[in-house]
């Protein structure tokens, strides 16, 4: 700091135009369309959409919206499932690494949770469905020996089924199964940026238990680094469509699903109502965010007060909660994983009568059928994911190679915009725009729509390690006469192989998982595995769904394993540079 203050005022920087170009590009590619998309949702919500005859502003769309059957219930369901899932996920993700810190499970946790990250949300939902239905694998495994059930049971008390319950519990479990691994991995990466061990030792030396030290010393430090991802999780949970389609009953869908139905209604006048729904969806996110903000303020004040009293949680009920917390954090994910095994079994089952625990007849018929029908879909998913992810990685690298300035950091903040708005809220407007420009259903539109969501995740995954690069290596190379380009290609890139390839894999899995953006931008003309899986999950027999789920699971996983093992192979040579 002192050094830079003594530096002379900056001369004209010949690379400044490049920075402005990047900023402008980001604004044009990301912010502009998103803003227009929001506008495209807001204007029709107030009755204005000239192509459909809406030329006067009115509140009629909102009146119609609130008169829809069951809409209040849908709003409440969205809010409750979204908030409960987020609060539980965050709580579990903050506490679980503390509970396991120093334990053998800690290392295993990272190893087994990372692949979960590459699974699309809908895959996790389908896994839960396969496991927990009244005729699902869990009940098949224990029937009829333990239960005496020769036919699938009818669970009267909870509305008949286990998943697809009217209270959204299944959806909450599904969201936790997916968000806990995401947040835990971010916690692990944040732990490496703070002095975890010395802080914990300090806490212990002052006579606090390990968990108390964790809560007082580590959690606040983690919190600061996790705020953004937590908001992303909140927004996602409040507006999730694909998971909700699979895990909520068809008569009690959350708002985001109702929005999709409105948008797909054959009556074009419903587009106005759909826009009103999109605005309500955005409002919902804001309300939930404010709740969260108040909650967190309260908690941090309370926590600080508690810390000042020196309260040590000894003999507190928390001790008994420990095993329960570990189970709560890992059970949904484990169930989803088990359910995916069931999906795999269904994909090769020729006949599987209830209550057999295993398929009665095995067959490869469904996979063969798929290879004549889904091969295009697999290729599309692969090309799309690879293209978008490669573009995003290159863009983020270029961007990160620039010296940070004001406009760049503004652009950096705006990159998260697509993740901070409910997808259905602005994609709907974006779709109207694409239609207007005749770009709907083109690859260009699809790549761009995917880029909106892939770019921020690639940034999240790449930026921290890219910035932790020790600049002295560059100086050393420069002193040996290496040009900027060769410094980049021969020094920085090789050292950054692991993070770069990992972020590529992350980008790929994000792209492979996108449902709503694909549906809106492709206009039904380009199908990816996720769209196929949702279509099949919504209405097909289990075996084809099992195959689609299997493919959907394998593709990102293969990319993930390939990328990381390739990088590790190279990384061995460079590990001493770190």
């Amino acid at each position, binding site marked *: 700091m002192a050094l830079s203050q003594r530096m002379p005022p900056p001369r004209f920087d010949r690379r400044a135009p490049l920075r402005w170009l990047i900023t402008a590009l980001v604004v044009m590619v990301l912010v502009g369309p998103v803003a227009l998309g929001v506008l495209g949702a807001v204007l029709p919500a107030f009755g204005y959409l000239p192509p459909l005859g809406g030329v006067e502003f009115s509140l009629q769309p909102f009146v119609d919206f609130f008169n829809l059957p069951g809409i209040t219930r849908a709003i409440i369901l969205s809010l409750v499932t979204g908030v409960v899932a987020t609060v539980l996920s965050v709580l579990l993700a903050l506490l679980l690494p503390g509970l396991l810190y120093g334990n053998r499970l800690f290392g295993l946790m990272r190893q087994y949770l990372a692949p979960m990250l590459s699974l699309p949300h809908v895959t996790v939902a389908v896994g839960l469905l396969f496991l927990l239905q009244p005729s699902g694998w869990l009940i098949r495994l224990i029937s009829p020996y333990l239960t005496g059930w020769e036919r699938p049971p009818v669970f009267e008390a909870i509305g008949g*089924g286990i998943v697809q319950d009217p209270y959204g519990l299944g959806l909450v479990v599904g969201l936790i199964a997916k968000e806990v691994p995401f947040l835990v991995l971010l916690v692990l990466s944040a732990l490496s940026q703070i002095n975890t061990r010395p802080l914990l030792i300090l806490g212990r030396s002052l006579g606090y238990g390990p968990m108390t030290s964790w809560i007082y010393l580590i959690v606040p430090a983690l919190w600061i680094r996790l705020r953004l991802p937590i908001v992303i999780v909140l927004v996602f949970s409040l507006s999730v469509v694909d998971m909700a389609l699979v895990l909520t009953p068809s008569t009690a869908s959350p708002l985001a699903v109702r929005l999709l139905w409105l948008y797909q209604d054959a009556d074009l006048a419903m587009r106005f109502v759909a826009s009103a729904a999109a605005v309500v969806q955005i409002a919902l996110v804001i309300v939930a965010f404010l709740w969260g903000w108040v909650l967190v303020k309260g908690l941090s004040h309370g926590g600080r007060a508690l810390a000042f009293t020196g309260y040590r949680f000894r003999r507190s009920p928390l001790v008994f909660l420990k095993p329960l917390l570990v189970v709560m954090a890992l059970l949904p994910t484990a169930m989803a994983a088990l359910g995916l095994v069931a999906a795999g079994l269904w994909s090769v089952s020729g006949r599987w009568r209830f209550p057999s625990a295993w398929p009665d007849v095995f067959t490869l018929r469904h996979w063969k059928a798929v290879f004549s*029908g889904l091969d295009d879909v697999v290729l599309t998913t692969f090309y799309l994911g690879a293209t978008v992810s490669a573009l995003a*990685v290159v863009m983020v690298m270029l961007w990160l190679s620039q010296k940070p300035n004001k406009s760049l950091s503004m652009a950096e903040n705006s990159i998260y915009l697509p993740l901070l708005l409910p997808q259905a809220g602005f994609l709907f407007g974006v779709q109207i725009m694409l239609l207007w420009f005749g770009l709907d259903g083109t690859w260009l539109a699809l790549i761009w729509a995917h880029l909106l969501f892939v770019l921020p995740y690639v940034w999240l995954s790449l930026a921290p390690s890219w910035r932790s690069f020790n600049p002295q290596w560059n100086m050393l190379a420069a002193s040996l006469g290496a040009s900027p380009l060769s410094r980049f*290609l021969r020094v920085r890139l090789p050292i950054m192989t692991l993070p770069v390839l990992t972020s590529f894999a992350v980008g790929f899995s994000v792209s492979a998982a996108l449902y709503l953006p694909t549906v809106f931008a492709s206009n039904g003309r380009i199908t990816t595995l996720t769209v196929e899986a949702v279509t099949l999950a919504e209405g097909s027999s289990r075996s084809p769904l099992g195959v689609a789920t299997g493919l959907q699971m394998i593709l990102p996983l293969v990319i993930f394993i390939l990328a990381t093992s390739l990088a590790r192979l190279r990384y061995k040579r460079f590990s001493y540079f770190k």
Partner: protein
Amino acid sequence: MNIKMSRLAMKMGVITAVLFSALGMGGAISSAHAGDEKTVYFNAWGGSPVINEYIIWAGERLNEDHGITIEHVKLTDTATAVSRILAEKTVGRNEGGSVDLIWVNGENFATMKNSGLLRDDAWAFDLPSWQYTDAEALPALVMDFGVPTDGLESPWGRAQLVFAYDTAVVNQPPRSATALKAWVMDNPGRFSYPLPPDFTGTSFLKQIALELAKDPSVFAQPVDQVDADLALSPLWDWLDAVHPYLWQRGKNFPKNYTNLAQLLGDGEINIAMAFNPAKFSNDIKTGALPDTIRTYIHDGGTLANVHYLAIPFNASAPEAAMKLADFMLSPEAQLRKANSDIWGDPTVLSMAKLSAKDQAAFAALPRGVATLSEAELSQSLPEPHPSWVAVIEAEWAKRYLSQ
């Protein structure tokens, strides 16, 4: 791996990345030019694997004969595609539309016809395969739910609502709406129907409404010309009584008849339905259903109709779409479709107009263990006027979606 090799690997990586980007962009540019006349975007309900596989087969055959590719856009609800075409018309896209051929009938056809969304040169009557049909013997070929087709759509297949039950657990299937109500209330949790507006679900509602109506003839008239509330009140009373005893207490419904059949196969429910007489034989054959499943229809008959293929006004590849519609109507395609091992959708062709060889081939088709005979299926009910669908679906949503 030495440094040289790893540098090579890195370069390869960069090249691959650039290549992918170029590939994607290339794809983007090539598909931005609408009007690839050799690719038919066939928008068809995609909830049944056997139908999807049949469409793949048709695509392969068409590719052999005419070099035409079929992209099956799998819909969960045909209304989605109708609304998309309507949106295209609204923003003034009169060519290069996203749909080339669409599988429709009834309400969706009526909507499209009334909104001018269909190619209107009576192309369907000019198809070479039209000669094998006999509209005098089967008036439904030119009257879709009572609305004249005017050659705006080409017939594809026939369908009739059939019920299926598991003989292992049900002794006597209930053969009327009234009997069904009693059965459901005696067997809580073991019956369901697809969620309207799924076409099978809506058809089931129409079936019950027709059966319970004091005067079924009102349903032949447009809904706004009669007292709809009066005509439908027996239906709502029936549903109000039955819903608490449905699968998952009527809070959750399967999405379509494929889902419903899966539940039947799992034993979660004991009675199911489909708008295809051969569906259950087909599933027994593949092992998806146990061989104790048999089908039946209600004593007063069940709904029967014809389904069609139509070309939107702004199709990008109308010529290729006609080739596909013509092929779908050809004896070759109809024969394969009617085979209950493949799909089992009854043909719309007139046997008298076919060659002796084709007639013999149709006669030799396997019927399937659970499929009713033509004689048993002869009791059928006419479809209500298409305008009833929207009213029934809206009222259903109001009553049962809000709890």
